[in-house]
């Protein structure tokens, strides 16, 4: 940039400071390298979901830290402190509702991001490792949702967790150990709350930050895959840099997600049920909406019985995740145009439709529970 001035040739104080830092850090080069990443075919709205996920994670961490100013993770204070946040702390209800709906937004965007990568064939060579790390990140996000859900210690939280951990118990050989480890004993109680809290606020965030960093590093190393069709000339004409165009699109996406989460916080603020008791009473346990499809699947007759429950809850989802992990190694065809990959397209539609049908079925099934 030209900062020519006819009256003075001395650099301003700010310019001197920048030059000082740049000489020692290589700031200008670093900035250029980080921001001037060429996006083949130009920045696209379809690519925003990765950055949006990063944004949502940061918002969750920030709101989560604020919640920790008042929340107490013990069985005798968890419920009361959460109610305190909702009713007595100024705008506490809004922060908690934002944190709650943020987790929903995270899951929605994870599905969008994974779908985009899958449909664009961006898991193929040389991007296999990014895909694998991404699958691990997906597991972490599900773990966040599962562990965070217990913390308010109301009936919904307690029972959804109990049922979820019991399902994990079905895994042969290690199931009992894993379930006792998570519960901190044979039955859910204070030990469970402490463990879920540590996992939710320390272990998972550290793991997520590490893996997300690795994910972004691998992505930059491999470069963006770009669109799957378009003539060479079109791609060349529209090529631009990550900054400012893709960053601009990412920010608009972030703003939209931010506003949407705030709107959800208004429409359905967090309302707790009664405090957790060892007897569910009239309450019908249910997990969070993004686990509902699994919950409904386990109601089918083919998954009845001990082995059936293991099959439906652990083996089948596990096999599906293994299939996803193996995907870049099975699908070696370099073709990335989704309209020329019929198996991939139909597979995606079938999986999404199945999840949707089972989720809606679970909601309909509520009427039949009495």
């Amino acid at each position, binding site marked *: 940039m030209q900062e020519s001035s006819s009256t003075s040739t001395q650099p301003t104080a700010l310019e001197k400071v920048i030059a000082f830092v740049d000489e020692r850090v290589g700031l200008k080069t670093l900035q250029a390298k980080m921001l001037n990443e060429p996006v083949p075919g130009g920045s696209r709205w379809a690519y925003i979901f990765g950055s949006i996920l990063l944004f949502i994670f940061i918002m969750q961490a920030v709101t989560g830290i604020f919640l920790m100013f008042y929340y107490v993770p013990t069985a005798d204070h968890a419920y009361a402190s959460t109610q305190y946040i909702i009713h007595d702390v100024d705008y506490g209800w809004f922060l908690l509702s934002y944190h709650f709906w943020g987790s929903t937004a995270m899951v929605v965007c994870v599905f969008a991001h994974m779908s985009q990568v899958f449909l664009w064939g961006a898991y193929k060579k040389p991007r296999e490792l990014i895909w694998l790390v991404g699958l691990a990140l997906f597991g972490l996000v599900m773990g966040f949702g599962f562990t965070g859900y217990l913390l308010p210690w109301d009936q919904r939280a307690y029972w959804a967790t109990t049922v979820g951990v019991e399902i994990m118990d079905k895994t042969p050989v290690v199931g009992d150990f894993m379930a006792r480890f998570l519960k901190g004993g044979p039955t859910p109680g204070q030990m469970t709350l402490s463990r879920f809290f540590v996992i939710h606020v320390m272990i998972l965030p550290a793991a997520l930050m590490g893996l997300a960093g690795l994910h972004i590093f691998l992505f930059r190393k491999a470069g963006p895959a770009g669109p799957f069709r378009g003539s060479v000339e079109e791609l060349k004409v529209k090529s631009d840099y990550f900054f400012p165009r893709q960053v601009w699109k990412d920010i608009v996406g972030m703003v939209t997600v931010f506003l949407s989460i705030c709107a959800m916080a208004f429409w359905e603020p967090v309302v707790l049920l009664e405090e957790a008791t060892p007897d569910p009473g009239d309450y019908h346990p249910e997990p969070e909406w993004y686990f509902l499809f699994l919950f409904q699947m386990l109601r089918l007759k083919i998954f009845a019985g001990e082995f059936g429950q293991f099959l439906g809850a652990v083996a089948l989802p596990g096999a599906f995740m293994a299939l996803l992990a193996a995907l870049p190694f099975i699908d070696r065809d370099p073709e990335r145009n989704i309209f020329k990959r019929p198996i991939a397209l139909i597979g995606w539609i079938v999986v999404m439709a199945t999840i949707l049908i089972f989720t809606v079925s679970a909601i309909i099934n509520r009427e*039949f529970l009495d």
Partner: protein
Amino acid sequence: MTDQETTSPVKLALKLLWFTFWTGFPIKLAFALLFLAMGIINFEARIGLGFLMVLASPVTVFALPILMMGLDSHIGEGVGIGLLFLLCIPIDIWAYGVVARTYFLDRLRLEPPDGIGLSLWIKTAIIGALYLPILWLVVGFTTETGISTAHSLFETEMLKWVPIAERIGIELTLWGTVSTAVLLVMLLIGLSIIGRVIRSATTGAQPAQENYQRRVMRWDLMRVPADQGLMLTAFAGTGVVLSLLFWSALPVTTPHPHECCKKPEVKAQPPYKPLDALNKDEKLITQLTAQLDELEKKKAEEGTQGKNKGKGKAGKAAEAKADSKATAQPAPKKP
């Protein structure tokens, strides 16, 4: 760079509507959020549908009031919904303009005519107003029929044994597929109508002369304002004002309190009116003094009767009278 003059009307409509929707969406969302905070919007159960419809204007902007009035489907209450619709009009016209100009230059190699945003908006809003109620009725009817057919299918002897969870899943798949298919077909028809309208808008346009790179640069730079300082300041300023409104409107405590922690009802004290109080008191005093006088008169009569019986008694009665009169006197002077 492909020759886009042979694009199907459906693709044309889809491209333009999709991008116009998303272009306007964040702005509408900001206002919707403000209205939610102010409590002037209350969406009812079909939140997703309602919200999308409000924000999926331009096609819905006239259709939605028709649907709400004519077909009795309520998406919510509050003056904010109407306000939001009014706001959607300029936002959509602007968004249409941006998207249409981009598309004309990039794909159609045509010069975008002036006022393209407004003319497109009028046409699609009217089409939406006429077509969407039809779509609503058709899809609604199909869905209802589908649901009841699926239900009755599982009431038959052949299929009564199917357990609940499986039954729900299969029923849902059956009527869901049918309804989705009908919805898609209706949408395709609607899009094709809009696509033809858009295509007729292109017939009058002049071809653009420059090469592809220059045309891309044109629509790209179209988004950079001539006076950056002014635009950014105005944008930031508006954002600050909206945030301030949001802060003042945001409820401090939860709008859905739990049984455990409802705030106690504080009854406001009736306002204290000094003049009235004074008048009331004065009236009371005069009333009481009158009563006292009557009592004294009575006592005096009894006293004169009792004088014949004994002076002591009379003396006492007289003293008592005098006492009571003495006590009676200062009292009215007190207030």
